[in-house]
């Protein structure tokens, strides 16, 4: 049986007190609870503080470019659907540089889990506004405060009928790992936006700030009701809902490709007979 130790313990490059530690912990728990062995799991990440997380896990890792983890994950999953593919990266990575891929991943509904460490700031580059920074948030690069409205990934995902949309808080490790476990179990694209305090560059959206505002959705909340979900998804600021906000059973992207039923697309083979037939068509 797989245990948390199978996922290893590594020295990290994070600041003491960073919310990333609890997320890492929750991820390990979720993997164990999901009964997954390290070699069944591929983590794909981009660049940022959050994106370092996969290096601290004993799994397959593809640490790619800033903002481009979803495309890599999509290609990897299509080529080997047997792998559990998880993207773990920051808010800047996924909603900023990678915004277009976020939209495309939702549309595809490929069976990939997206974990976003959302600290509402670009941490690794030393504190610029991120797409989720609240309007007015002040940084050295935005001394007059952020002039754009904050991006609400949960609302956009629900509006687009994403397969699985959740928000969690790094301060509640058990809930977080539960949510991640559900996201992994969900067949289709799943988003877990994790509120993550950054002690070095976000002095506004602190642990206490999130703690005070976030609340868990009640037991009777029905995440399959889109009309209810879109309203809950719209909440931000004073009240921040946590939990699985929306979920559906949209057809899986992979289902459109009969070839994917036949196992990994690993190379080394070629259907010579069919190719010969195809060649004939050029006569």
């Amino acid at each position: 049986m797989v245990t948390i130790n199978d996922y290893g313990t590594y020295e990290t490059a994070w600041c003491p007190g960073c919310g990333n530690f609890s997320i890492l912990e929750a991820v390990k728990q979720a993997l164990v609870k999901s009964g997954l062995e390290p070699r069944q799991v591929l983590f794909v990440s981009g660049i940022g503080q959050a994106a370092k997380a996969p290096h601290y896990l004993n799994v397959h890792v593809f640490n790619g470019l800033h903002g481009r983890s979803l495309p890599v994950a999509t290609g990897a999953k299509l080529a080997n659907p047997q792998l559990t593919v998880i993207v773990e990266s920051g808010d800047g990575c996924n909603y900023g540089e990678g915004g277009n891929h976020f939209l495309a991943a939702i549309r595809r509904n490929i069976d990939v889990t997206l974990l976003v460490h959302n600290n509402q700031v670009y941490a690794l580059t030393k504190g610029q506004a991120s797409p989720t920074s609240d309007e007015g948030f002040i940084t050295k690069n935005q001394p007059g405060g952020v002039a754009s409205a904050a991006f609400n990934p949960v609302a956009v995902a629900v509006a687009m009928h994403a397969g699985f949309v959740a928000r969690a808080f790094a301060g509640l490790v058990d809930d977080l790992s539960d949510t991640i476990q559900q996201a992994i179990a969900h067949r289709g694209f799943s988003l877990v936006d994790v509120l993550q305090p950054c002690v070095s560059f976000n002095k506004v959206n602190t642990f206490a700030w999130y703690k005070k505002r976030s609340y868990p959705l009640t037991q009777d909340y029905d995440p399959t009701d889109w009309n209810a979900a879109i309203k809950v998804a719209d909440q931000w600021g004073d009240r921040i809902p946590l939990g699985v906000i929306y979920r559906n059973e949209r057809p899986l992207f992979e289902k459109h490709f009969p070839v994917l039923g036949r196992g990994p697309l690993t190379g080394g083979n070629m259907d010579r007979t069919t190719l010969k037939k195809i060649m004939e068509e050029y006569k």
Partner: protein
Amino acid sequence: MTDQESEGYTMTANIINLLIGGEAGQGMVTIGEILTRSVVSSGYSVVVMQSYQSRIRGGHNTFAIRMGTGEVIAPQESVDILVALDQDTVRIHGEDLSSEGFIVIDEAFEAAHHPCIKVPFKQWGTDAFSNIVALGVVSSLIGLNEELVSETMNKFFGKMDQRTVEGNRQVLEKAFQWTAEQPMSFQRLTRIPNPPDCLVMNGNEAIALGALSAGLKFYSFYPMTPATSIAVTLAGKAERMGIIVEQAEDEISAINMAIGASFTGAPSMVGTSGGGFALMTEGVSLAAMTETPIVIVVAQRPAPATGLPTRTEQSDMEFVLHAGHGEFPRAILAPGTVEECFHLTRKAFELSEQYQCPIFILTDQFLADSYRNVKPFDITNLSPVSPGFHGDISSLPYRRYSITKSGVSPRLLPGGSEHLVVVDSDEHTEDGHITEDLTVRRKMVDKRLEKGSGIRKEVIPPQIHGDERPDLLMTSWGSSKGAVLEAASHVRSRGKRVSTLHFSQVWPLVPEQFIDHLQAARDVVCVEGNATGQLARLIRRETGFFIGKRVLRYDGLPITPEYILRKLIE
């Protein structure tokens, strides 16, 4: 081209250049393709040159088929049979008629002072049939067999109801008859008794088929002329061949997807043109750093920016050679024929799997769209590439980037073994984890660059043809291959010693393979489809040899033998 200018260019016997001109949407490509197939089935050799505008209806497009009893290797500018589907075609191409040339035209149009056959296109039915009339008339003129053309047409149109098939056949028959009755003498192509089996395909189709034969499993793309037909070709065969073809949200995604797929073991390729490739350059660097195999097709068109999206050019060689930040090895293959499109694509896969790095195929609109007759590829003996490492991993734990003498590390596929595979776009240790150890950095740079030595050993030597100590040596690369060869033989026929040095691989260059030839020539001229002479510059960079004379073309049209001859005289 005026008669005077073309003086240098004598028509070879038994070659006909037929050009169909008209608006987009008039069905010119349909006639062109059926005719091309019929001509090839009859045993002739062809080179097709398509020229079209960036619009769906209207404008002025052409489909030129140069056909001959011997080998045809290049397009031609002067026209022997001009099929004018509209009046504009007469205006624009009337002056291109060769001395024996004439126009085939609807009786409704004016042929000005040019010799012509006026065809009652509408006589045998509706507008829809007039293309078949045109097909019939020119087929008859060339001397094709009616039965063969009819069959080719039916095959081309695919499943249709019996009535339509019969209707088409009748129209074709009438067109043949009508033509036979016309009081005109035109030198038909000599019949070829037992025509050999030949395929008809264009450069992009050959790239697609080459990739399939090499074991391609994943192709991602964002539509962009002139690369899109690779995707169309592969998409049409994806299910049968058990591969995935995915249209991405943008080119950045396309290349990153392919890298992801390749990482997990699927031989992967992307195709695009200049502007789309610009967006892929960061991904090129990623493939290099993570040492993930990938084949990248760049189908060139005139730039900068959007430029002339449907025309041809050879101006992205230097861009492709230096694309991506940082330093890493790569190879750039530049096919010169449709056969080379097939074989060099295979080679690209082999190199990319072997050296775990990005390998480029640099083609252009002319070649991409140029149909040719090709001898059927014997795929029985062609094997697919086999990604990853197949030996034993001797030293554990497994290290994705273990430092080896060749620079190539054993590559395992995630999920393909007991081992975990860790790769990183940051500088990394042998085990793939991010590092800031600067000694490791240096070793990793050396390791990656060392792969270049291996790639160098497998370089395709440039092809050298012609006289030993020539008065004139022409260098060229990529799609202009045939044009340069043909121009050379024309010059030679006028008594000059001439040779050609053609590169089907433009990077790496191995000077020992060609420098003697450059030095032995009295005059060297480089022939390129760009405005600055990029190959010439590269040759100087790698050898010191300076090529001062240049025949450059950058008006969006392919290099033709006539163009070269004109420029050589200038």
